[in-house]
């Protein structure tokens, strides 16, 4: 097959080129996962406690404990998600690598980038983070969304992935 092409490619596993997500993103990921799961888990727990008129005091305690355990688990998953996500940009493509148990490495060739979205929520603004959405003309993976990028990194990616001379293209 095409051996000369293979030679030019740096090995995908050269770890030094892979960039981690921003350290601040870890706290944001964990805090958000914990809060949301806790709030959502509290609803059924609350219903359970309210179901009986004279439920003992430890029912409430147990419900809170259950909700925080679930939230803790969600936070753990979020932490792992942060730890196992990497990205890399070379001359050819943007790569995003996610997960460990279910590993997935996405490759978006730079010539296939249609447009980019730049998103920043309140927490992301507070911690200098950004979410980048890379759109292609594909179908199953028409948008690659990556949150937890350092603002500077995200801006850099935005600027390089769609060069200025192509910005005003249709």
């Amino acid at each position, binding site marked *: *097959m*095409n051996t000369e*092409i*293979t030679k*030019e*490619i740096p*090995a*995908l*596993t050269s770890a030094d080129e892979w960039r981690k997500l921003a350290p601040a993103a870890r706290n944001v990921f964990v805090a958000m996962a914990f809060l949301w799961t806790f709030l959502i888990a509290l609803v059924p727990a609350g219903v359970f406690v309210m179901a009986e008129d004279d439920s003992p005091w430890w029912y409430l305690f147990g419900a809170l404990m259950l909700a925080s355990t679930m939230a803790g688990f969600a936070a753990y998953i979020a932490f792992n998600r942060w730890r196992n996500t990497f990205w890399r940009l070379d*001359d*050819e*493509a943007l790569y995003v690598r996610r997960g460990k*148990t*279910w*590993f*997935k*490495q*996405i*490759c*978006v*060739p*730079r*010539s*296939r980038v249609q447009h980019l979205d730049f998103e920043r929520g309140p927490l992301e603004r507070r911690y200098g983070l950004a979410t980048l959405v890379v759109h*292609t*003309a*594909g*179908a*199953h*993976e*028409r948008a*690659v969304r990556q949150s937890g990028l350092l603002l500077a990194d995200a801006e850099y990616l935005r600027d390089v992935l769609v060069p200025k001379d192509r910005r005003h293209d*249709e």
Partner: protein
Amino acid sequence: MTNNQEQAIVDLPVPALEKQRRLHPLSWLFVLLLQLKQFAFPLIILLFTGRGDRNELWPLIGVAALAVYSIFQYFTYRYRVLDSELIVRSGVFQKSLRHIPFSRIQNVSITQNVLHRLFNVAEVKLEAAGGVKPEAQMRVLSIADAHELEELIRGHANPVAASAASEAAIANMETLHQLPIIDVVKLGLINNRGMLVIGAGVGALFQTAGKAMANLVNSSVKSLFGWSDSLHLGATGTIVSLAMAIVFFLLLVRIFSVLLALLQYYDFSLTRLGKRLTVQRGLLSRLRSSLPLRRIQAYAMSEGWLHRRFNKRSLQVDSAAGTAINDESKSPLRDLVPIAEPAEMDKLIAQFLASDQWPIRSWQSLHRDAWKREFLMPALFFMLAGIIAAIFYSPYAALILLVIPVLFLRAKVWSAHAAFAHTEHLIAVREGWLSREWRFAEINKLQGLSLREGILDRRFGMASIYLDTAGAQLMSSAFRIPYLPREQANILMAQLSTKISNGPLPF
């Protein structure tokens, strides 16, 4: 992605290079009919529920209003053909002006149903890339106008053919494939689309008249059983007659499918003019649609059990010319070659690809243990389901475990056929057991790649590569090269990425 200027301007300073044109004078009739079709349900309900003499008139007022609106629409819809673009003015209250450059129009589709043919008119749709709605929908043009417009746009999209007069263009037209009636019948038998229609029909009936239908089914089943009881058939007799009833029903569905295929695919022809394909088909409603070859994004060739009996294969394509074309019901181009013999199919595909890369000679095998992976996943699932059901439901549920040998056989047959190929311009994969499928795409048509590796994959040291193309059907399975050795998957991904980056842009 549409970049048409849509403006609400009443008086438009348009250079009068050519005179304005209108739709066919009878177009209001077709617009009205279409709207009546949309309102048919409420109108019928009004007719049947509105008791008393006065109420029965209400629907008529609605119809009259729609008729007036349709006539207004006819008077306000005008189009003009300029050098490089088409200008469409429309709108009764909300005026709109639309500039459609010819270069953006990817497909001109002309539809003629029976009524259209009676009045010698046609419905014309101009479709652009990536749009869900057609850029312009002309309901209806006279057949001469429709063909003139088609010719014009085809000429602009393909400058080589443009220089030639339309007569010369027709002479250049090359018929690639045609279906004789016997093949249309085979197609009906194979694709069994009648089942879909019947399923949809039954669903709709239950939805609209749920209770009454349920009662009807109930009583008819009861009377059937009563009738069979009165025949004193006994248990075996009942089973035999039930089996016969099922066979009869399946036969009926196949016959219905054949009729459907005859309606849709009668006089099918696939022609080629330069770099453009045109499909024409239909018994009562004639349909004609064309698309540039480079618009084809991915191919799927399939061969089911019945295909093999008739020595045929089918070819479907994904095109980037908008979802409007990929919509199953009105996509003459999705089933690009409904059926053809394998050798002929190979020749056709080689023509579409414009290279000598098809048929592929260098198929490469997947991971050595691919069959184990293909077997284990569903086997584990059924094992778990069988055990749980046997414990909690009934010991007979353990019969589910009988599926497992079948799964084993399936995995073995699957792995004998499964392979992938990576040539200079092409990436391909073949899979399947009872029905087989070949999927392939030109590498420069790929939009994105991803490599995936689950827990089981890691144990075997394998990974799958998912290939994303434009216009891929979201409902169908993903285009992927499954279960490659991990190292090989990495290398393939890197090679594809390089080729995509260095190759020409797909559009």
